[in-house]
């Protein structure tokens, strides 16, 4: 651990202090320790931490870091789970949380320019008076920032019907590898040229630093029905999910939790969850009253034909909020089970949900890890949560091995590595499960087009050795291949 407390660079720090003032430049051992990790299990080694307030400052920090040959790692609230904001090889941790202005809400065009440090839920609260909200709603939405959502292309329960963050970002202001500022995308549809906006969203801070974003706002639905349906087994709940999709319904959200997770939540929240049931399905439909009534009735019917134990419809906004609170606070509730947790994120085609879940529990048994599950069933996005005690020697390594197996089983079923958390450091070694050398080399070319020198968040997303010189890359003179 000593390594994380060394590696200061006083010349770089002093240059940054001249730029930002001493109050916004931190490099004490404690400060560097605090910014060494995100909400996941990996740790890095920041050289210095800066709090920026303007685009120009971000650009200057990039230029300064470059001059010193030090990389830049952007960071929002640090709620990420794949170590995307972890400065693995050192560098300037550029914190955007002070860029938290909602600049202008354009009610007519349903858009707003916002800083990357704006907290997700604050944005939806600020736009409530206009009858609109920001659709991506990760469970961490009361803490996570829009900049982080952009970096990871975050999802949330309601991206079943509304799509992930990228569907809600119209334009970005970006500081580039040269320390210049460009705006990509537009408030008008189909801006001409390649879609740089679309490739930057979800690129985990490896292509540039986002300093402002033009977000699309979604009208609040006139009516909503939120239902909690209890089942004896995960299988029955999953069959209901398939039945709903097969009936031509795409609910606003379709979430599932297993018994262990329900019990953990109920212990502290007392939301009245049916803890004796094997699985709970949380379904929400939104729209005009006629539509939500019809759809809620259809869902209840499909659930009953799949042996639902009970169907409860939230009778008031307060009841609805409580249901959602139980869903979104699930991960906090796990503290009772064990001091540490590893929250996973993988995806299978939704038709393979049942078999995937069965194998998730098998892996848990084999490693003797408590697997608790609360996940986005509607789009096949699994979130097995492994509760463990990191102080037990070797335990974290076992948990990581189990995590890799979880990914492998999902890929075998036609799934992918991550649905909404990103690759970061956590899963880059698993990228070859999904992609050939040629595919990975193409992805490395995307990175190199924006950042050939590796200024931004080096080492993330792609495994080492992704660049393959067998595929006709021009080889730099004198390079070792």
């Amino acid at each position, binding site marked *: 651990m000593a390594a994380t407390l060394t590696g200061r660079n006083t010349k770089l720090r002093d240059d940054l202090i001249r730029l930002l003032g001493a109050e916004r430049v931190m490099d004490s051992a404690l400060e560097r320790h605090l910014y060494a990790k995100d909400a996941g299990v990996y740790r890095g080694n920041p050289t210095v931490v800066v709090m920026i307030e303007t685009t120009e400052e971000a650009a200057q920090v990039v230029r300064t870091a470059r001059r010193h040959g030090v990389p830049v790692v952007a960071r929002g609230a640090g709620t990420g789970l794949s170590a995307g904001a972890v400065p693995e090889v050192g560098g300037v941790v550029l914190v955007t949380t002070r860029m938290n202005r909602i600049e202008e809400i354009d009610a007519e065009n349903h858009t707003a320019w916002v800083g990357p440090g704006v907290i997700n839920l604050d944005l939806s609260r600020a736009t409530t008076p206009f009858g609109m909200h920001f659709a991506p709603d990760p469970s961490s939405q009361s803490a996570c920032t829009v900049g982080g959502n952009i970096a990871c292309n975050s999802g949330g329960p309601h991206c079943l019907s509304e799509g992930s963050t990228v569907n809600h970002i119209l334009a970005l202001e970006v500081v580039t590898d040269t320390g210049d500022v460009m705006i990509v995308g537009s408030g008008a549809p189909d*801006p*001409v040229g390649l879609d740089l906006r679309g490739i930057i969203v979800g690129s985990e801070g490896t292509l540039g630093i986002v300093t402002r974003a033009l977000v699309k706002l979604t009208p609040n639905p006139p009516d909503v029905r939120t239902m909690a349906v209890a089942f004896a087994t995960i299988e029955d709940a999953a069959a209901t999910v398939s039945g709903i999709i097969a009936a031509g319904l795409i609910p606003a959200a379709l979430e599932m939790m297993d018994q262990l997770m329900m019990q953990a939540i109920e212990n502290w929240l007392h939301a009245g969850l049916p803890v004796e049931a094997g699985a709970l399905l949380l379904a929400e439909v939104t729209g005009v009253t006629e539509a939500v009534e019809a759809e809620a009735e259809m869902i209840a019917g499909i659930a009953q034909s799949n042996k639902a134990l009970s169907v409860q419809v939230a009778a008031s906004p307060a009841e609805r909020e409580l249901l959602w609170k139980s869903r979104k606070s699930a991960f906090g509730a796990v503290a009772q089970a064990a001091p540490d947790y590893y929250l996973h994120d993988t995806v299978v085609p939704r038709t393979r949900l049942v078999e995937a879940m069965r194998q998730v529990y098998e892996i848990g048994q084999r490693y003797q890890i408590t697997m608790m599950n609360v996940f986005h069933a509607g789009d096949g996005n699994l979130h097995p949560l492994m509760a463990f005690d990191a102080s037990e020697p070797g335990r974290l390594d076992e948990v990581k091995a189990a995590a890799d197996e979880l990914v492998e089983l999902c890929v075998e079923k036609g799934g992918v*590595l991550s649905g909404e958390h990103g690759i970061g450091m956590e899963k880059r070694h698993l990228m070859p499960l999904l992609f050939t050398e040629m595919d990975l080399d193409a992805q490395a070319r*995307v990175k190199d087009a924006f950042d050939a020198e590796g200024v931004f968040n080096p080492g993330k997303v792609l495994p080492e050795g992704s660049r393959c010189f067998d595929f*006709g890359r021009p080889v730099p003179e004198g390079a070792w291949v």
Partner: protein
Amino acid sequence: MKTPFGAIPAADISADQAIPPAEIALAPTTLEQASQALRIATERRMKVLVWGGGNHQGYGHRVHPDMVLITTSLDRIEVWEPEDLTIVAEAGARISQVEEMLAGKRQTTVLPHHSPTATIGGALAAGLSSYKRFRYGPTRDRVLETKVVTGDGRIVRSGGRVVKNVTGYDIPRLMVGALGRMGLIGSVCLKLLPTPAAAVTVSVEDPADALAALYRPLAVLSTPSGHSAFLWGTQAEVESQAARLGGEMLNGHAWPTVPSRLVGWSLRLPPSRLSEGLERLPEGWDYVAQQGVGIAECAADQVEIGAARELRGWAESVGGALVLTDGPETLYERIDPWGRAPAGLEYQRKLVAGFDPFGVLNGGRLPGGV
């Protein structure tokens, strides 16, 4: 020239549609064949034009090809998973045929298919979305996986066959609207949507009022002859929404015909500026305007460069664009089809160079000659 698979004689090419003259035209039936063709093109530094149904060739700077790669023999439906709401199809598949198949299970790609010959690859390359965009967002949001052949013949797969995915860079999204510069689109996995039970078209007086009265309609379209709202959903839902509008109601969707004349323009504006944009259209232009989206597809009988420049200048001043989508060859020499080049052109050039190092594939077609 020795070719690895059947070449099409030049006489046959010119007889078929409007394929421009080239040394050779090839219709690969597999991605491996397309890869071989592009390796040859790269070795010989030939200029290659990709040709699907030939419906959207008016987009972008003109290419004078040495080789034409026809994609219509790459037309297999590889996998359709109705319960997953996904389909994997080769890019030369005709949208109209795919839609016909999907309709059997009441599903849709939501791709535009005004022309029966329009291919999936063509719509994606040109970055086109259907009139249902107001409700469902652009086509780009539904492209889950792509397999492309790069300019130098590499076959590259990106994305995944699930509806939610952040595994690596989102190259599939980058392929949409790239006009083939990032590679020949070989096959794609698309997210599908269920088709609701009831559909109606309601005529409306004021499109702004209609948008305000409705909760996320499918579309509100304006043409020179009036405005209509398009609704779908359950029977009760469309009836109650239609009642809010009060206009004349037709069962089904009476989509307007896409205007097609000598010259085509696509006016793209922040949605709130669309009405003003329509007022500024030169006399006699036909159009279909998508309210709430900000696009007006326009058609004119004449080449009116002065009027187009004036309209473009205004559109660009409010953050929009006026894009030439069709017209006589000479028009493309007199006016830039794209207008003002976007920011980040050097990054666009570098991206393209990574996928097509020698600029053989649809070279120069994008803004700024990328």
